[in-house]
């Protein structure tokens, strides 16, 4: 049962990811990306990471992709803006090589160095405890990253004085 759900979600995720890069209309790409995020959220649920799944939907699908869609629609790009690029083939070959590099490890996953441990439930409680004890330092740094990004956005968009 779990495997069946996983396969459905994985196929959905991968096929929509392919649509993202093959579609010429940017709006379709964004919508396909949204569906990838949903499939990923489903996979997180299968891994017991409910919290992560919900955050994935709320933040990525609910906020970030809406902004993407907003910008794409505002620009209202037409398909003729896309130029055929001969470098595409090189990119494709490299991409395939990349896929194979990622496929290799999958077939020997049992050779992992770490013993399979009990999978903890990824609920808000466990994540919160880890974030505010062991990972409190990188957690705080993340706030600096956000601050920098905010300042950067303002620096680049502020009106001249």
């Amino acid at each position, binding site marked *: 049962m779990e495997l069946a759900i996983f396969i459905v979600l994985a196929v959905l995720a991968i096929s929509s990811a392919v649509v993202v890069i093959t579609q010429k209309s940017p*709006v*379709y790409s964004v*919508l396909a990306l*949204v569906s990838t995020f949903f499939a990923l959220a489903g996979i997180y649920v299968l891994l017991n990471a*409910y*919290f992560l799944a*919900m*955050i994935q*939907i*709320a933040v990525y*699908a*609910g*906020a970030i992709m*809406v*902004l993407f*869609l*907003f910008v794409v*629609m*505002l620009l*209202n790009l037409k398909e003729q803006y896309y130029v055929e690029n001969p470098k595409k083939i090189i990119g494709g070959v490299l991409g395939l090589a990349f896929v194979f590099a990622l496929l290799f490890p999958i077939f020997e996953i049992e050779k992992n160095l770490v013993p399979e441990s009990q999978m903890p439930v990824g*609920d*808000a409680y466990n994540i919160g405890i880890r974030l505010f004890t062991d990972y409190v330092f990188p957690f705080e740094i993340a706030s600096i990253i956000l601050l920098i990004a905010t300042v950067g956005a303002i620096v680049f968009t502020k009106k001249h004085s």
Partner: protein
Amino acid sequence: MDAFTQNLIFTVLKIAFVLTFTLLGVTMVILAERRFSAFIQDRLGPNRTWFGGLGQSFADGIKLIVKEDVIPNHVDRLVYLLAPVVMMTPALMIGAVIPFGATIPSGELWLPLLGANLENLVLQIANINVGILYFVSVTSIGVYGIVMGGWAQNNKYSLLGALRASAQMISYELPLGLSVVAVVLMAGSLSLGEIVKVQQEGFWFILNFPAFLVFLIAVFAETNRLPFDLAECEQELVAGYHTEYSSMKFGMFLLAEYANLITSSAFIVTLFFGGWDVPFYDETAHGLAGVLLSVIVFAIKISFFVFLFIWVRWSLPRFRYDQLMHLGWKRLLPISLATVVGTAILMVLFKDLYH
């Protein structure tokens, strides 16, 4: 009968109940809105069909279904067809995590198909431990229906409506989420069942009035109701995102809007007004009757907020767009941040209030 089958049957029953409640509720709410707005404007409103107008919504529904389904030539077909579905789905999905009645204790159900080892029956489709986040994420994807619909119609007005909707949703999601955080702080859990339980044992969370206020305003914005219906805005955008929808596709937009209204009211009740909690009454005291009472009380509370929604819609004028952004980012966001901090401080100072 094994436990799995039992669970399955009851889950299906619960789903059926919630869906029926929402969809029937929608017809009632539409009628109520029309009658009430008529009252506000000193008119009569629909009062002929069936008993004093009760059938009006059904008649309208039949009209919408049998109407010719026009798909304009210039639309982007796939997205155009998908949009009403995408709009409808989250509106109905939200109901899955709302607890709509007290738990039925084992041994109280007399249905003949049950085995002897029946466990307590929780009146909630799925009591997941991240229920509130589910609510936040599902409401946040509700905007896709509007945005897709607006874009697919390929005309300026609809696109403008879609743009407004997406910006508005993003802006008001933050206060919404933050005011929910205040509730989570008080309840100490993300599970809605737990939140109702905490309120039942202590005070209702309306105690945290600023959070409630922010939540209420944000919910108004998220449901695209007046004074926040800039995505629709008949006068400027000729109905915005659903200008070129006809027949039942239009009907689905309408349905989704009102379904959102009901589920949002249900959430306000669950988070701030004790959910199905009947004040000063022990729901488990009288068996099935007590449970039934809790369900009815829950419905009454919901109707009160639905009424509030309608009342506001027909009393207040629409925002201008800059006012909308101003309110969202410069007023609600700081207030909700202050609410979170304040709630956290108060929770530390008065530890015994809830836990």
